[in-house]
């Protein structure tokens, strides 16, 4: 790579005003960045980058800086105050995912296996909750419960709930969240409008899953909850 950089500098010095050479430099730079990305795609600390590229710390920082300029790097600071670099080609796509919204408010952090990103507007907490329910994944549901601490647009939640036919899930998860954390209070109007009939048949949030610990809530909302107390180790249970 160093050799390549020297070539750029020489070419730049000699032929800056030659348009074709300029194009060639850009193409070579793109190719080099792609190669760098291929080697570094994943989650790394600076030490890991140094190891992979077999370079010193300054060089490693420079390479991360270059990838960041292309939009491939997201940085997070770990609990022991170390910088962790998330280097993925998809970081370049921008937008905001519902996982990012959930991760912002939840003690349980989600890693994205597939993407659902929103452009041109800010995804709301209410939408993120509905997304979590529709994902039918235990970990996403567990993480999304913390959204109830901040949800206050009950009208929007009601609209989205009815549009996506997830009335019982929303009701059951709300009651569940009240058992493990302080939340804002759902309006009586919304609660009454989404409560199922007393003789309604049981539904399942996730096929084949039911709760041992939250039978009461299941009975109220006539839906099987795929979560137990043990799933909330990261939350402080009341």
């Amino acid at each position: 790579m160093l050799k390549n950089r020297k070539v750029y500098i020489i070419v730049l010095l000699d032929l800056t005003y030659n348009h074709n050479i300029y194009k060639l430099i850009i193409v070579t730079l793109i190719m080099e960045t792609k190669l760098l990305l291929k080697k570094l795609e994943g989650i790394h600390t600076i030490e890991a980058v140094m190891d992979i590229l077999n370079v010193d710390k300054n060089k490693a920082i420079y390479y991360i800086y270059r990838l960041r300029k292309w939009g491939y790097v997201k940085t997070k600071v770990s609990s022991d105050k170390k910088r962790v670099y998330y280097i993925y080609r998809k970081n370049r796509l921008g937008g905001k995912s519902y996982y990012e919204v959930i991760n912002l408010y939840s003690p349980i952090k989600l890693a994205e296996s597939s993407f659902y990103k929103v452009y041109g507007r800010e995804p709301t907490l209410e939408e993120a909750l509905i997304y979590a329910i529709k994902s039918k994944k235990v970990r996403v549901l567990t993480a999304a419960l913390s959204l109830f601490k901040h949800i206050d647009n009950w009208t929007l939640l009601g609209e989205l709930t009815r549009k996506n036919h997830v009335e019982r899930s929303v009701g059951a998860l709300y009651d569940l969240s009240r058992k493990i954390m302080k939340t804002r209070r759902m309006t009586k109007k919304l609660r009454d409008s989404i409560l199922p009939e007393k003789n309604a048949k049981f539904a399942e949030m996730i096929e084949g899953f039911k709760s041992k610990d939250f039978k009461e809530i299941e009975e109220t909302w006539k839906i099987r909850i795929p979560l137990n107390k043990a799933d909330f180790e990261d939350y402080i249970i009341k």
Partner: protein
Amino acid sequence: MINVNEQQDLLLGVAKKLKKEIVVYAIGGTAMMFHGLKDTTKDIDLVFNNEEDRESFEEAAKSLGYREFDSVIVYGAKKENRPVMLARGKGEAERFDLFNYNVISFFFSENMKKRAENTFEFGQNLILKIADVHDLILMKCATDRQKDAEDVQTIINESQKIDWNIIIEESKHQVTLGKTRATWDLCDFLDRLKEELNVNIPPEVINELINLVQKQAEEKKE
């Protein structure tokens, strides 16, 4: 050429003009960009669930200055099920290719829709699902334009793992849906990739496809 940011701006622009929510599937270079496999594309290739959705999109795009463009110029007169093409700008620099279920010699099947997991929502009304890389190979084989072979080469080289069974099974499924040329087109396309571009395609994949084509021919004879 359209880059990642320009593509997002174009889609956002159309989304703002849409009067109702529609779900579309990205294929081709557009999908490759969303998979991080490409930096630029000549056109934005989209597949719609029905004609009504395609018309809504067309209407929104036309209100932004796009006009119809002859698809024979790009796809040739021989290709069936060519898309509605809309273009704007100097030298038709910004182009949409709008397919409805039929993508030349393939259907965008229900299985393909299920595999399109990654979703991007533009504004309130445009939900864009990205075709899976396996299906991109099949669709590229259907369009089979100048750049398609190189794109498939990139997909195979850059994607972490290609499950050839998914591709073979889908081509068989396409035959049952009525696209009788699907296995033949795929077999021919992959064979050319292997021979001309030296792409790493396991020989057993091509053998299996040849067997399928042979079986299909014998069945037709009977």
